[in-house]
């Protein structure tokens, strides 16, 4: 198994895992807030937020990557701000890869969570309020546990998507071995040269195995939680 993939490939796998995990975990709170705002909010600009969130789904990934470069690059307004304020650089760093992956996965995460939130019976939240729970408490003790399966689904979906993200990542943070050379970038590189298919397919196998493992885990978790809730 160790021999089956070369050290560079293992490095890509490890990096992909790291990037996807961070991408997913860091976008979780924002995804949740967005999903809440979209599901429950009644504010001006709700529609705009909605289509902003969806944009990466619709755009060709290269375009998203290019836009990221414009905004978050060293010269980009947000990128230079982050740099001067917090000393955070995203360009050509694995952190940038995580940003790209999370932006590409964001619509999927938000959608899954939003649907879960919309499925929560507001009558239960009313009941919780009458029992003395503030809005925050209602959220943490009733809404959150009830949408947990949706959150898990969203997170895992986002993780899987992040594992497969390529176009935006390579455009934004290029393909630096050990830093931003994720599994899909490696696969792409293999596919560019004649005879590279078999190496590419080995990596595809690894990527698919990881993603499917995550999906199966999430199904199992959701099912377990749903069982606890509804008994079915």
């Amino acid at each position, binding site marked *: 198994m160790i021999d089956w993939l070369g050290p560079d490939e293992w490095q890509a796998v490890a990096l992909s895992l790291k990037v996807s995990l961070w991408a997913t975990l860091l976008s979780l709170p924002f995804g949740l807030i967005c999903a809440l705002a979209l599901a429950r909010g009644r504010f001006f600009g709700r529609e705009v937020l909605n289509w902003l969130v969806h944009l990466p789904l619709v755009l060709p990934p290269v375009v998203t990557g290019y836009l990221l470069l414009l905004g978050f690059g060293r010269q980009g307004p947000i990128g230079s701000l982050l740099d001067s304020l917090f000393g955070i650089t995203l360009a050509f760093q694995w952190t940038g890869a995580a940003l790209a992956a999370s932006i590409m996965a964001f619509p999927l995460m938000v959608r899954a969570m939003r649907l879960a939130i919309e499925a929560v019976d507001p*009558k*239960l939240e*009313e*009941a*919780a*309020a*009458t*029992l*003395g*729970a*503030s*809005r925050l*408490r*209602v959220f943490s*003790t*009733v809404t959150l*546990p*009830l949408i947990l399966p949706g959150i898990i689904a969203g997170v895992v979906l986002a993780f899987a998507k992040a594992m497969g993200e390529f176009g935006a990542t390579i455009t934004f943070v290029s393909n630096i071995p050990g830093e931003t050379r994720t599994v899909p970038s490696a696969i792409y590189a293999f596919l560019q040269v004649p005879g590279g298919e078999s190496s590419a397919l080995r990596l595809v196998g690894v990527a698919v195995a990881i993603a499917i493992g995550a999906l199966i885990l999430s199904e199992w978790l959701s099912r377990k*939680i749903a069982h*606890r*809730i*509804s*008994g*079915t």
Partner: protein
Amino acid sequence: MSLSVDIRRSLGGFDLHTTFDAPEGVTVLFGRSGSGKTSVVKSVAGLVTPQQGKITVNGRVLFDRETHTDLPVHKRRLGYVFQDSRLFPHLSVRDNLCYAARVSSRGATDPRQVGDLLGISHLLDRRPHSLSGGEAQRVAIGRALLSAPDMLLMDEPLASLDGPRKAEILPYLETLRRETGLSILYVTHNMAEVARLATHIVLIDEGRVVRSGAPEEVLTDPDMVRLLGIRDAGAVLSAIVAEHLPDGLSALAISAGKLFLPAVDAPVGAKLRVRILAQDVILARSRPEGLSALNILPVRVLAVRRGEGPGVIVQLQAGEDRLLARITRRSADALGIVEGADCFAVMKSVAVSQTDIAVGLQTGL
């Protein structure tokens, strides 16, 4: 005044315009299906917002359009038992019961006493989805009780419970009210519950209050008989426990004499209310002898209301109290029951059962 409601709200052709003041104790909202009872209770709880008006509980202003006061639901400190149980599906029965303690400083953390009382202690580790309808509703009642509210709002809480369970829970609600001074706004269709619990009755019809007052007045008003339903007409008397007799009866002193009832659970000297259904009263011109009925009171006829049917409602003066009797026109004619006539009211002691006795309160009596 424990609860003061004055609200206006229009929704899709239905116009709620309800104003009443309720004293401490149990205020029963009574009215037909669709008359707006749930809408009133929801307004008090803060789940819907009236377009106009003011709501106060124990002097605390919950809502006032004028001053733009509108306390959020969780700060109103009201326990709400819904028509549907609304248990939290992700929590065990125990955690449902202790929910209030978890989310606020108010609630009680030990569900056992309430659990035993409501017959749900064996369910503590179950999940809501596996409960029968009645079990779920009992847990919902327990959950609201354990939130230590200033006032309980109950929207037909017992509709899905069976008779024995109802009978078990009702006294607990009374005890609770008596011992904690907890007021209850109670919605029901069931006259037995009204009679048993009410210290105040608000009759509501098409969103408007048609009558609000003590049960003694509202229930003995012959004009209300039609609204309440003929079978449920009856009088409520004030009584004092005079004696507990060895054969399992208690003697109660009322203004017109003595009433014998199955032993009541109150010490000698306690004030009680006794409800006597109009249809349980037999009239006689002379004092009848050799009857199994123990309670025979001298009364004077105050009024005779003829309805459309074969029956008449007779309002009677019994000492300082009023009674209602429902007899046939034929009997009324045969016995000469007319205004001012003196006669005797015959009631079986057992017709005045436990569930029609409310242990009295200073207020509302």
